[in-house]
């Protein structure tokens, strides 16, 4: 046996390589053929409509669901997308390891901004004038501890002014002006005045819900342990994720800004998303099912009832354009 191996090792080696390549090619071809079907599978009926990224078809097509549950795949391919008042922000890969935020107004591309890392969150203000995003900065391919951070950018389409990072704004933590430079901000939501905004500050092991002002470039903390805020269309409530579930997982909460009352959304345990308001009473978010792909759910903002599944193998939910 050993002699046979020594004599024939070249032939056996080459054969083994050919087999591996053939199996790989067959597997990929079969999988890719299968994904074409997924792009037009219907979802649940969404009264006010839903825009989302379709992960099932393998192309990340920005698709929509209408009031009858009919799914329409679009042309745009994005990792994260959000649309409001005719403005769409699309975060996508531009080069190997490089990403960009493309801004579309009325269907045509008006601006692209190179991003310093992997996209995480994308938002457009209700008026369609202020665009914001958060990315993970990982620097290089070797993930060194301490070598990562988040960076949040805000683009004002009225003036064209770009804030590359919220770190440039002044920060007051619980009344004390803050001087540290290496702080992480993520998950912006801009109010209907197109000036004030909420976001998350992470510093050390603590996170804060913060409120900021675009004109004065100043931010203050509001309360602890609230991430990825999303301001309701009527500006009275903020939805956010907060660690509190079993094993320290995130759950969604809605905070009434006037009364300070916090309501937990049932069935949201394990979520990691910036929730989106589909209308004044309904929130949508993506959550990964056990061992599967992310699925988009909607949930009543007053915390009554269990979440309803809207569409599987999909992420980045937002209201229809």
């Amino acid at each position, binding site marked *: 046996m050993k002699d046979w191996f020594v004599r024939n090792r070249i032939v056996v*080696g080459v054969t083994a390589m050919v087999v591996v390549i053939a199996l790989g090619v067959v597997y990929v071809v079969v999988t890719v053929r299968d994904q074409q079907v997924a792009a037009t599978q219907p979802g649940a009926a969404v009264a006010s409509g839903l825009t989302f990224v379709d992960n099932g078809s393998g192309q990340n097509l920005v698709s929509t669901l209408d009031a009858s549950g009919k799914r329409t795949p679009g042309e745009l391919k994005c990792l994260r997308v959000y649309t409001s008042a005719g403005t769409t922000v699309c975060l996508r890969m531009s080069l190997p390891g490089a990403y960009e935020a493309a801004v579309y107004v009325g269907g045509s591309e008006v601006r692209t901004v190179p991003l310093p890392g992997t996209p995480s969150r994308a938002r457009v203000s209700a008026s369609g004038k202020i665009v914001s995003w958060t990315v993970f900065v*990982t620097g290089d*391919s070797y993930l*060194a501890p301490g070598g990562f951070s988040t960076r949040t950018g805000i683009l004002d389409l009225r003036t064209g002014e770009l804030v590359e990072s919220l770190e440039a704004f002044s920060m007051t933590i619980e009344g004390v002006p803050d001087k540290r430079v*290496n702080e992480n901000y993520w998950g912006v939501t801009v109010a209907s005045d197109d000036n004030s905004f909420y976001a998350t500050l992470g510093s050390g092991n603590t996170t804060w819900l913060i409120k900021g002002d675009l004109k004065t470039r100043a931010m203050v903390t509001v309360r602890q342990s609230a991430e990825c805020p999303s301001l309701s269309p009527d500006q009275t409530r903020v939805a956010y994720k907060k660690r509190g579930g079993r094993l320290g997982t995130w759950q969604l909460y809605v905070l009434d800004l006037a009364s300070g009352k916090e309501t937990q959304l049932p069935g949201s345990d394990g979520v990691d*998303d910036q929730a989106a308001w589909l209308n004044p009473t309904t929130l949508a978010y993506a959550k990964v099912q056990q061992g*599967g792909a992310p699925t988009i759910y909607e949930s009543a903002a007053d915390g009554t009832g269990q979440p309803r599944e809207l569409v599987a193998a999909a992420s980045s939910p937002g209201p229809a354009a």
Partner: protein
Amino acid sequence: MYVASTRQTKASPSDGGARPSRVPTTVVLLGTVSLLTDISSEMVTAFLPIYVIFNLQMSYLQLGLLDGIYTGATAVLRLVGGHISDRVHRHKAVAIAGYGMSAATKLLFPAIGASSVGLGGVLAIDRAGKGLRTAPRDALISLVTPKEKLGESFGVHRTMDTIGALLGPLATFALLTWVTTRPNPIFMISFCFAALGVIVLIFFVRQPRLERVPGKVVTLRATADLLRNKGMRRTTIAAGLLGLATISDAFVFVVLQKVSGVSPTWLALMPVGTALTFLLAATPLGRLADRLGRWRVFFAGHVVLLAVYLLLLGPFTGIVLVVITVGLHGLFYAATDGVLMAHGATLVPEHLRASGLSIVQTGQALARFASSIAVGLLLQNLAFSTAVLISISTMVIALVGVFLLIRPEVSR
């Protein structure tokens, strides 16, 4: 034709240096194994952020931290890999186990899904495989290469290795853009490259025959005694000291982008620039190290790194700064990565080669790991410029310390 060829054969023995130097076939084959394996692992590394954030909807921050910790922890496995290889006289078999482990993890990703514990485990197995295989592979390279060409052989190997590291992310990008964003095909293709690497190793690489010298048994004791050798001990300490003063690439690139004021898109191109310079310069610098002295070139490489840190202070800005800094950063790798192993190989006897190399590697890897944690902690409380100044001072202290420590015993 005839005349020309006879002239050539006549000329070559007389002036020695003009003979085209031929790197041993085993080195090229091991380079091919590394190239294929690096395509595979860098494909996954490039895909992982997207996979974790978009396919699994998980937070990337914990995972990055986890991976860093495993990289540090499994560095110790190099010692195990090195010792076993020497003990059983089968470097190739241990290397197969290491490469095989990493290849298998590519098939585990789809099964694991969105479990941070599971993902951490898979990454740990991948890193463990890397830890296990490094020492026996480098020992194989050193065992099949004549002493005066060690620098060149390691240079060729590192060049091929880095080509793979460059191709991996390109493959991922092409797949994501034109074929599919579904994760399973990407993991499958990555697995295929890794499997091809393992096949090349199993079927084409030959374990060099080592004569078992009676009386020279490989025991833990004998391995530990390697550090009694002055040259070996000082090399390990010096590589560790310099490792402590080496900050992570991620930090270098992030600071460089800020200081130079270029667009963040350059953040993605900087590692490519470093890798390109590394792969172009690794072989020539390895050859230079064979001629000038390997330790000297290794030391000079860290002086170049000091220059990189000085440039991070931003004496000038713009793309020029980026290009020069990234070029020097690549030269640093070319002058140190393979050269240290070439130098280490001259210090240990053949029957303890893998163990000896693993000691030097582990010392350096642990030191770099400690430094990246320290930098991470520093950055929680300090400005970038302060952190850069601290890095510069640390590097100057390490260079002076090492210069005094090493000279003159190990100058070659």
